[in-house]
């Protein structure tokens, strides 16, 4: 009501306060779910409550298990929500809060929701098969290889970017190191307690969370618990190892530590470390969202960031659409939708709740991430000083989110130092789990490519993991950022966004082809697909050929090569899309299994 009263009194959009902004965003999400997803479910997908879903048809008690929609939604949401919907929006507010909010809200309603929902339904109608398998069936061997390479690039980018995120946070918030490392033995303990002793997991994982946050409180208060490598070496200006500066050395050490950790973590069985970490992370997701939204209500902060930023060095159009990938639309969700959720859907009509609302959950996280940053600064000048250029925003976006979130937490009487440690622990935990999953995924893809191209050595677990880890470490260490060697990992962020959008593009294409085959209106998926592909290609041309190429102002061969590869893949997808959609008799091999 307070938000409504505020909106009624406003003369200009710039007068909007943060609660009203959140309320408007949430209201549009609600409208999207209530009306648009209903329209899509009833008129386009024509969901049938009597359809025998793969969970029933192929029920095996392991992968195919009919699951209550609320539980499945919870699982789906915790699988897709991570550090990415926080980082992207925290960078994209560089162009002002309005473009970021609009893209998050409208992207979630018209693109992400339809994408996640569509891939779920498509997979349900095709024996619960994943998007990768469906691409193979539709486009043939070419489709499979295309898909594998795009995922390979995506996970490589994820590894590099998230390793950089964690190293950066460890250097900026040294108090978060101890609680983060305490999580590892605690997770192993939970894994054993639950798996071997058959203890219920809620209580042990809550105890683990309490220990972690206890450690966070102590490490925020006592300096000796803060593992500050830069301070140990004598401060920012001191010399480190191998002739590098202190910050570069700290980056180098943290990246090596992380890579050793991730090597071990990703080769362990999932129940030993990854899954128990996920239990703790589920609590952290709730704690994080709770702190942020309640903090927002209690502090009622003013938005100090500009609505639009006229003096930017890089145009928002089209870079905004790849800077915010997760939180507006993300291809990774399609992998979850079609990989696990589709095999567990009890009724086909539940797909709307699980898929569409799962995307909205991520939009809610992205929205509060924007609000945390745009309310952090005392005034517009302070915001513009930190967000002075796109590179500066990319480097400091996440740090600003953590400080903004701790400012919101102050409304809940949590001291700022403790709050910033806890929020950075939450972000690092998400990032570390993503890193673990992503290295694991990369290992599988390398093994699969080994099978495909008959290189048996690649099929071995440790060979594939070594390649994955070394490639990721090399990628994160090469770009030089403002803090020297290894600190430029954020330069890869737009490439991560691009790879993610390409994946979403393929999934939307598959759904469109399926709808076309059924004679339904496929505009709801083809329009977001064309939009995404257009923006991605445009952004790529700008960045790869006008910015990073050897003849451009700021040449960067590494980014140029990766960008060029992604650009070729994007073109490939578009050509394939046109081919498949234009040809009259090509209905692909996508099915629509009859009701039995």
């Amino acid at each position, binding site marked *: 009501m307070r938000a409504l009263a505020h909106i009624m009194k406003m003369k200009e959009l710039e007068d909007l306060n943060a609660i009203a902004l959140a309320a408007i965003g949430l209201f549009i999400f609600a409208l999207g779910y209530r009306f648009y997803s209903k329209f899509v479910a009833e008129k386009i997908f024509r969901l049938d409550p009597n359809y025998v879903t793969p969970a029933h048809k192929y029920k095996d*008690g392991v992968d195919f298990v009919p699951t*209550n929609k609320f*539980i499945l939604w919870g699982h789906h949401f915790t699988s897709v929500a991570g550090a990415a919907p926080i980082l992207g929006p925290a960078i994209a507010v560089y162009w002002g809060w309005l473009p970021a909010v609009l893209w998050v809200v409208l992207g979630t309603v018209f693109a992400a929701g339809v994408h996640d929902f569509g891939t779920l339904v498509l997979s349900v109608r095709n024996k619960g098969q994943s998007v990768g398998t469906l691409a193979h069936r539709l486009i043939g061997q070419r489709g499979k290889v295309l898909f594998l390479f795009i995922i390979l690039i995506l996970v490589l980018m994820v590894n590099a970017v998230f390793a950089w995120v964690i190293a950066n946070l460890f250097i900026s918030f040294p108090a978060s190191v101890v609680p983060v490392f305490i999580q590892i033995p605690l997770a192993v303990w939970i894994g054993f307690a639950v798996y071997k002793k058959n203890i219920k*997991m*809620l209580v042990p*994982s809550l105890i683990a969370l309490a220990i972690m946050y206890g450690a966070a409180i102590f490490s925020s208060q006592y300096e000796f618990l803060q593992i500050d490598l830069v301070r140990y070496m004598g401060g920012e200006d001191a010399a480190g190892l191998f002739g590098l500066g202190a910050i570069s050395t700290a980056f180098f050490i943290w990246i090596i530590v992380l890579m050793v950790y991730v090597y071990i973590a990703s080769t362990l069985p*999932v129940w030993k470390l990854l899954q128990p970490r996920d239990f703790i992370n589920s609590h952290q997701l709730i704690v994080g969202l709770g702190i942020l939204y309640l903090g927002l209500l209690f502090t009622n902060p003013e938005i100090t960031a500009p609505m639009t930023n006229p003096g930017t060095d890089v145009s928002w159009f089209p870079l905004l659409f790849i800077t915010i990938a997760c939180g507006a639309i993300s291809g990774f969700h399609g992998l979850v939708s079609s990989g696990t959720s589709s095999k567990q859907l009890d009724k086909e009509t539940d797909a709307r709740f699980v898929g569409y609302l799962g995307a909205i959950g991520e939009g809610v996280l992205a929205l509060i991430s924007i609000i945390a940053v745009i309310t952090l600064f005392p005034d517009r000048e302070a915001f513009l000083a930190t967000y002075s250029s796109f590179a500066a925003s990319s480097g400091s976006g996440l740090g600003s989110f953590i400080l903004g979130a701790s400012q919101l937490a102050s409304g809940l009487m949590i001291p700022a130092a403790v709050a910033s440690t806890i929020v950075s622990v939450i972000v690092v935990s998400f990032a570390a789990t993503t890193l673990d999953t992503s290295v694991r995924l990369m290992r599988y893809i390398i093994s699969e490519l080994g099978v495909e191209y008959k290189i048996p050595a690649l099929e071995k677990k440790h060979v594939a993991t070594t390649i994955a880890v070394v490639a990721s470490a090399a990628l994160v260490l090469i770009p030089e950022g403002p803090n020297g060697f290894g600190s430029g990992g954020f330069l890869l962020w737009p490439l991560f966004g691009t790879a993610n959008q390409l994946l979403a593009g393929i999934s939307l294409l598959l759904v469109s082809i399926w709808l076309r085959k059924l004679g339904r209106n496929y505009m709801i998926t083809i329009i977001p697909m064309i939009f995404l592909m257009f923006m991605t290609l445009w952004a790529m041309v700008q960045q790869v050929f006008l910015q990073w190429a050897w003849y451009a102002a700021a040449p960067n061969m590494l980014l140029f090569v990766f960008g060029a590869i992604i650009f070729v893949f994007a073109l490939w997808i578009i050509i394939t899309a046109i081919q498949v959609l234009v040809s009259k008799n090509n209905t692909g091999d996508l099915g629509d299994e009859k009701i039995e």
Partner: protein
Amino acid sequence: MPITDNLKRLIKWYEAVLEHPHKTEIARELRAEDDLFLLMLYSEMLGIPNPAYYYTLELYPYMIEEFHDWHLRMGMEKSPLSGIRCC
């Protein structure tokens, strides 16, 4: 008290969300063990000598029910054994 009831339901839902992937993983591990066990039972048919083969014959009616899913999981499209023609 409706509030306590709602809270209890919420905690129950949350616990179920947490347990969901865990149950899958446990079931997967158990199935992997079962698959290995089945392979040992069939070892004689696959040419690996098995001294307990005579006794495992008693399990035949139970094994045959699971045989089709097993050979599919093992990456064999059709039944590898001429004695069992499930597909």
